[in-house]
């Protein structure tokens, strides 16, 4: 094993194995942080430890320290940006769990059927049950026993402890009853009776309880594990965003090479529509660069020689020659990938509700069993009867439905969400949505459409809107610029076909000229009109200044030597945004608008949808800081976004929601994806999360309640296998039925389901 670092601070990542709950992560973190010069953060969801070392620390020493706590650790293999590397370890664990679930189901079903239906109880059926149940308790339930042992070493109790104690007690008691009691005799049957009567414990076997509980809980674990989110996917999506190859200029000749071969100082060509390969400086050419996904700035940025450009942004205009200034891990995209990874790794995981309840329930159940033993012995009952009562308490204390309470509700909740266009990434997501009180909304693509649209026109005297749009639309139709496309689309929508253009010329970065219907037209910036000696009248000048102050992009239109009007282009607010914000407020959430765009535009958008708190002109890397700052203020933050610049903030937020129309990076970093791509989806997501959580709590209450109610019967020596089976069946049926109620959850949006509230017309 090699030394991690010999000099200054460095970071190391370890893959951790064997964690079963959030407490495990906390234990390992504590253990590592006790080492000199080590700062560690362990994430249960990603099963990774981020370790910062000051001075020389051996990776072997860190791994040994983790292993001392009873878990495994290893240095991860190098990341594969192509995204096609199979996640072997994760897959292996899931595969092993699947084998256990299948094995346990096949073996448990006959055991339960035999125990519950006396007519099927053939001679020596109990021994057949033992043969079938033994592998279930010893092999299939092994993860619970292992976790329980680990927990015991750390003086803690979780759901695994309860399952392990319950199944082991039931199995050992059955062994005793079969070998030393009367349960192993020929003709022994379990009569179908739920009467409460003193019974000889040595005649009863509880193999179906042990096998049934193991199978149910394993199945729940499997569903949970299968849908556990893949944190690495966000990173891969980010790395995939960049250009794969680049047309580099070598001795004046273009050569297409993989981006990895690009060196600092290399000059490369970017054609219209292509992604810029890496961060650099424009050497020649002018164009508009669409950086909205990276910066949140909705208006394309005009670039000319000497201007800096960022890798992975799209060249929307003319041909550019760029000199590479940063490559590989130094680019802005790579830095963003690091931010996303850090945010995901640092995200605190909530302890599962079932584990928190078990942490209190287990010591109490054991204490009741000990108390029962004491009372029975103290009163003078036979020792066998005293032990029967004590063991019966342990058997019945382990609720079968405990393993189903959370996964079934999550399964139904996530299924209903999918029907409504709310895709929930992992089961833990809904549990972490507890107590969300603030919702941070990205502007571009989330509150607004994210695409440039013609929002208005201002006409000179005597010019009709149709006339203005005909000439402007026809001329802009010949251009590839995003603003030109917005104008042409609006003109075609309104007028249908557009006239042909003659003598079209694209003046890079300034606008376009040409002849439409015999009129020599000029469209673009004020400087282009000045070049053509066109003066802007005072009223149009005033309208231009006012529109620009409101955050609009203004395009000037002139023909036949006279200014004829202005076209206002901007990012339009989605029609459902204001309604959604109102509903989010009604849910007790405080909306905050967060954007990289300028403050004027941000305030205008915020005012139009009813948001008071605006955080504007935020750099991509700062968005995650804003979310972290809000969390440091004690707020539980949900974040809704769509861009690469939102990815880290989405990962950092307690609940990240990505618009389905957004980038893969944002979708992968988020907890929930909103297919409908309108904010009403976020309202549904929050409502569904809260509703599912309520169902989980009710399920857990009843899962424990049925069994807790049977504890006194067990303590008084009145438990029989049918009563234990009935508690198991009733609690399971209740949990499933209660969870199925989530299927009737109604969407906020009018389609496809009627809204519970009236939508306010805009």
């Amino acid at each position, binding site marked *: 094993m090699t030394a991690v670092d010999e000099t200054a601070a460095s970071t190391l990542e370890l893959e951790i194995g064997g964690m079963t709950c959030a407490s495990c992560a906390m234990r390992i973190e504590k253990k590592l942080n006790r080492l000199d010069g080590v700062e560690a953060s362990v994430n249960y969801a990603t099963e990774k430890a981020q370790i910062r070392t000051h001075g020389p620390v051996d990776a072997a020493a860190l791994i040994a320290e983790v292993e001392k706590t009873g878990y495994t650790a290893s240095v991860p293999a190098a990341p594969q940006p192509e995204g096609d590397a199979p996640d072997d370890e994760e897959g292996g664990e899931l595969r092993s769990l699947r084998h256990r679930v299948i094995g346990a189901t096949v073996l448990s079903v006959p055991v339960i059927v035999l125990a519950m239906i006396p007519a099927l109880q053939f001679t020596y059926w109990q021994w057949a049950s033992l043969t079938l149940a033994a592998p279930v308790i010893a092999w299939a339930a092994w993860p619970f026993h292992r976790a329980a042992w680990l927990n015991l070493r750390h003086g803690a109790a979780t759901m695994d402890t309860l399952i392990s104690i319950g199944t082991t007690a039931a199995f050992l008691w059955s062994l005793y009853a079969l070998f030393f009691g009367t349960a192993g005799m020929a003709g022994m049957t379990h009569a179908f009776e739920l009467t409460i009567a003193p019974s000889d414990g040595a005649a009863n076997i509880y193999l179906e309880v042990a096998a049934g509980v193991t199978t149910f809980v394993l199945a729940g674990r499997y569903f949970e594990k299968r849908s556990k989110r893949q944190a690495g996917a966000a990173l891969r999506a980010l790395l995939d965003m960049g250009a794969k190859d680049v047309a580099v200029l070598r001795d004046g000749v273009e050569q297409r090479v993989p981006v990895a071969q690009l060196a600092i100082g290399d000059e490369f060509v970017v054609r219209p529509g292509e992604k810029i390969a890496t961060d650099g400086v424009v050497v020649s050419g002018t164009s508009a660069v669409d950086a909205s996904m990276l910066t949140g700035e909705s208006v394309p940025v005009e670039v000319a020689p000497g201007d800096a450009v960022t890798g992975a942004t799209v060249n929307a205009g003319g041909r550019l020659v760029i000199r590479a200034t940063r490559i590989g891990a130094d680019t802005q995209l790579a830095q963003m990938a690091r931010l996303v990874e850090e945010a995901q790794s640092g995200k605190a995981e909530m302890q599962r509700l079932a584990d928190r309840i078990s942490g209190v329930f287990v010591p109490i159940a054991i204490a009741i069993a000990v108390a029962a033993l*004491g009372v029975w012995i103290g009163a003078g009952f036979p020792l066998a009867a005293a032990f029967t009562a004590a063991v019966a308490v342990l058997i019945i204390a382990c609720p079968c439905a405990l393993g189903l309470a959370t996964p079934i509700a999550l399964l139904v909740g996530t299924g209903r969400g999918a029907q409504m266009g709310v895709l929930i990434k992992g089961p833990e997501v809904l549990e972490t949505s507890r107590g969300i009180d603030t919702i941070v909304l990205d502007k571009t693509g989330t509150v607004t459409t994210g695409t440039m649209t013609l929002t208005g026109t201002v006409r000179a005297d005597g010019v009709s809107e149709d006339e203005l749009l005909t000439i402007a639309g026809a001329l802009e139709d010949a251009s590839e610029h995003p603003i030109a496309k917005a104008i042409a689309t609006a003109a075609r929508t309104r007028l249908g076909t557009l006239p042909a253009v003659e003598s079209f010329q694209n003046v890079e970065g300034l606008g376009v000229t040409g002849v439409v219907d015999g009129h020599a037209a000029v469209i673009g910036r004020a400087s282009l009109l000045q070049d053509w000696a066109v003066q802007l009248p005072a009223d149009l000048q005033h309208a231009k200044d006012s529109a620009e102050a409101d955050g609009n992009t203004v395009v000037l239109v002139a023909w036949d030597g006279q200014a004829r009007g202005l076209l206002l282009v901007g990012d339009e607010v989605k029609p459902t945004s204001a309604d959604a914000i109102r509903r989010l407020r009604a849910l007790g959430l405080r909306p905050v608008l967060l954007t990289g765009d300028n403050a004027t535009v941000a305030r205008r958008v915020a005012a139009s949808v009813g948001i008071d708190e605006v955080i504007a002109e935020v750099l991509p890397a700062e968005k995650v800081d804003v979310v972290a700052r809000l969390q440091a203020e004690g707020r539980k933050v949900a974040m809704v976004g769509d861009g690469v610049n939102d990815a880290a903030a989405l990962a950092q937020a307690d609940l990240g929601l990505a618009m389905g129309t957004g980038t893969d990076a944002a979708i992968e970093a988020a907890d929930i994806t909103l297919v409908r791509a309108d904010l009403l989806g976020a309202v549904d997501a929050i409502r569904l999360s809260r509703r599912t959580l309520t169902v989980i709590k009710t399920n857990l209450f009843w899962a424990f309640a049925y069994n807790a109610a049977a504890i006194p019967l067990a303590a008084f020596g009145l438990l029989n296998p049918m009563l234990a089976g009935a508690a198991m069946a009733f609690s399971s049926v209740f949990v499933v039925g209660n969870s199925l109620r989530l299927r009737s959850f109604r969407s906020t949006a009018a389609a496809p389901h009627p809204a519970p509230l009236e939508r306010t017309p805009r």
Partner: protein
Amino acid sequence: MKPAARLALYGVALAAVFGGALLAGNTLVPDALVSNWTSASENEAMEHGGSR
């Protein structure tokens, strides 16, 4: 608190519970109840012919 100390404390608490229960069983449960239960249990076992 360290795990060992926590477990030791819990063990002491369990011992106390056991001791208290032993005392309570001895003083609160009437002998008649014990003998009735024992005979009822024996009858139950005989009725089921050793099966339950």
